[in-house]
C-alpha cells in the first residue's frame, strides 16, 4: 500500500535546509513558492527518494493557477503531492522539473499548451496538441 507522507514533517525538513520555501503543508500536500519548485523537487528527489513523477498538471482557479505534482517513491512506496500557486493570468512562469524527471517533458508541454504556463528550463517548450498560433489556452476557465 502506498503510504502518503505527512507533509508537515517534510515541510520541517525542507525548512531547515531551505527556509521560506514552503507556504503550506496539509495532509500529504506540500505547497511551495513557484520559484522554489525546482530546488524543493531536487531536494525531495535526492533526500526522500521520490524518483517517479507520476502526474503533473495545472488547475485554473480564476484567482490563481495551481500546478500539481504527484510524486511517488518506488523504493519506499510513498507518495507526496507538491503544489505551487501562480498568481495572475499573464506571464506565468514556473521552473521546469524536466531536468530532474524526464517524465515531466510531455506533461509540462501539455500544461503549457492548454494553460499557458511557461516552464523555465524546459528544453523544448512547444505546444503539444494544438498548433503554433492557436488563439488562447483552451483549458483556462475564461476560454470559451
Amino acid at each position, binding site marked *: 500500500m502506498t503510504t502518503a507522507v505527512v507533509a508537515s514533517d517534510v515541510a520541517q525538513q525542507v525548512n531547515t535546509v531551505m527556509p521560506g520555501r514552503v507556504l503550506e503543508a496539509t495532509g500529504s500536500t506540500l505547497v511551495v513558492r513557484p520559484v522554489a519548485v525546482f530546488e524543493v523537487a531536487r531536494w525531495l528527489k535526492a533526500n526522500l527518494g521520490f524518483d517517479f513523477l507520476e502526474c503533473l498538471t495545472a488547475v485554473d482557479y480564476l484567482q490563481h493557477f495551481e500546478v500539481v505534482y504527484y510524486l511517488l517513491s518506488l523504493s519506499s512506496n510513498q507518495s507526496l503531492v507538491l503544489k505551487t500557486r501562480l498568481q495572475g493570468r499573464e506571464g506565468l512562469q514556473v521552473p521546469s522539473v524536466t531536468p530532474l524527471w524526464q517524465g515531466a*517533458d*510531455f506533461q509540462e508541454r501539455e500544461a503549457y499548451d492548454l494553460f499557458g504556463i511557461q516552464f523555465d528550463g524546459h528544453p523544448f517548450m512547444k505546444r503539444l496538441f494544438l498548433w503554433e498560433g492557436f488563439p488562447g489556452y483552451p483549458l483556462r476557465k475564461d476560454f470559451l
Partner: protein
Amino acid sequence: MSQQQNELVTEPVILNMGPHHPSTHGVFRMRVALDGETIVDMEPVLGYLHRGIEKLAEAKTYVQVVTLTDRQDYVAAMTNNMAYVMAVEKLSGIKVPERAEYIRVIMAELMRIASHLMAIGFFLNDLGVFQTVIVYCFREREKVLDLFEMASGQRINFSYMRPGGVIQDLPPQFIPQLKQLLAELPGYFDEYEQLINENEIVLARTKELGVLPADKAINASASGPVLRGSGVAFDLRKADPYSAYPRFQFDIPTGTRGDAYDRYLVRVAEMRQSLRILQQAVEQMPTGPHRTRTPWLIRPPAGDAYAHIESPKGVLGVYLVSDTGISPYRYKVRPPSLINLTTLRDLVVGCKLADCIVIFGSIDVNMGEVDR
C-alpha cells in the same frame, strides 16, 4: 574547380511518418530525419486526435463524464471507466459494495487481456507478419468482447461503471461463459508463444532493440509493460492495491533487458497472470448488491482527488477537482500512453527506419489516450 569538396556532402532526409501511415496506430506522426536508413533525429507530433475531453468534461455531470472516458483509450475502455469512477468515489466518499468490486476486477482483467492481445497483434503487424497474428488475436479478443457485450450491452464503449458500483449486475450466463473462456485461452496463448517466441526473425528483429534501462524508465515515468519490461517490478495492483486486488494471488512478470522483446514477453506473461486473477475472482465471487444508491447528480464536496489504477498500458491516473457543482471543475487524466512516449526519441535515434516502427509498436500506445 581546384577547391572542390572531395567528400560527399549529404543532408538528412526529413520523412513524415504519419499521421496517415499503416503502422502508426492511429494518427501519430513522427517527423524523422534520416541519414540513409538510419534515424538521426525524431520529433513526435501529437494532437491529431485531440478532442478536448478534459474541457468537455467540465460541462458534463459526473455521470455523463463516464461516457467520455470510454473514448480516451478506446481499446481498453473498462479501465478508463474504473479509474474515473474511483476518483469520483474518492472525492465524494461513496462506498462500493463487495460484489461490484469483484465485477470491476473481472472487467479490468478481461480488458487487460483484450488490450494486450491487440498490442501483440499490432506488434507483429509492425514486424511484418502482415495481419496473420492480428487476426488470431482478434479471434480471441472477440470472445472477450462477447462477454463485455453480455454484461454491458456494448463491445467497445462500455460505460459500464458508475460511481458506487456497476450499472447492472452480471447476467446469469456470464460466469459459465467466462469459465469456458478461461479454459480456452491458455491454449491460444501457447499457440502465440509457439508462433512468436522462438522465431529467429522475431528474435533478430526485437532483441536488444530499443533498450530502456531501468533507471531511465523510472526517470521518464514509464509505466506498465514498458517499465516492467525494463526489470522494475512496479505494478499498482501490488504497490497500491485498490478495489478487490489485495485478495488475489498473482505475480508481477518482469523483463531483464528492457528491449522490445521483453516488453512483448511481459505482455504475454501478464495475460496469464490475468487469467489467474480471473480464476480466483470467479471462485470468490460474493453475492450482494452491485451498486450503492447514488444520486443522479453527484455533488462532491469541494476539494481534489487523485485515483490511479494499473491500466493495460500503464498507470492511469485521474485527477478530479470539485467546486461542489454537478460537474467536475477540473478533470485531468494521466495518460500512460502519452507518458510512455516520452522516451521514444531516445530509443529511436540511431536505429534503422524499420526499427522505429517496431519500437513504437512495442510501447503500445493508443492515440485516443495520447491526444484525448
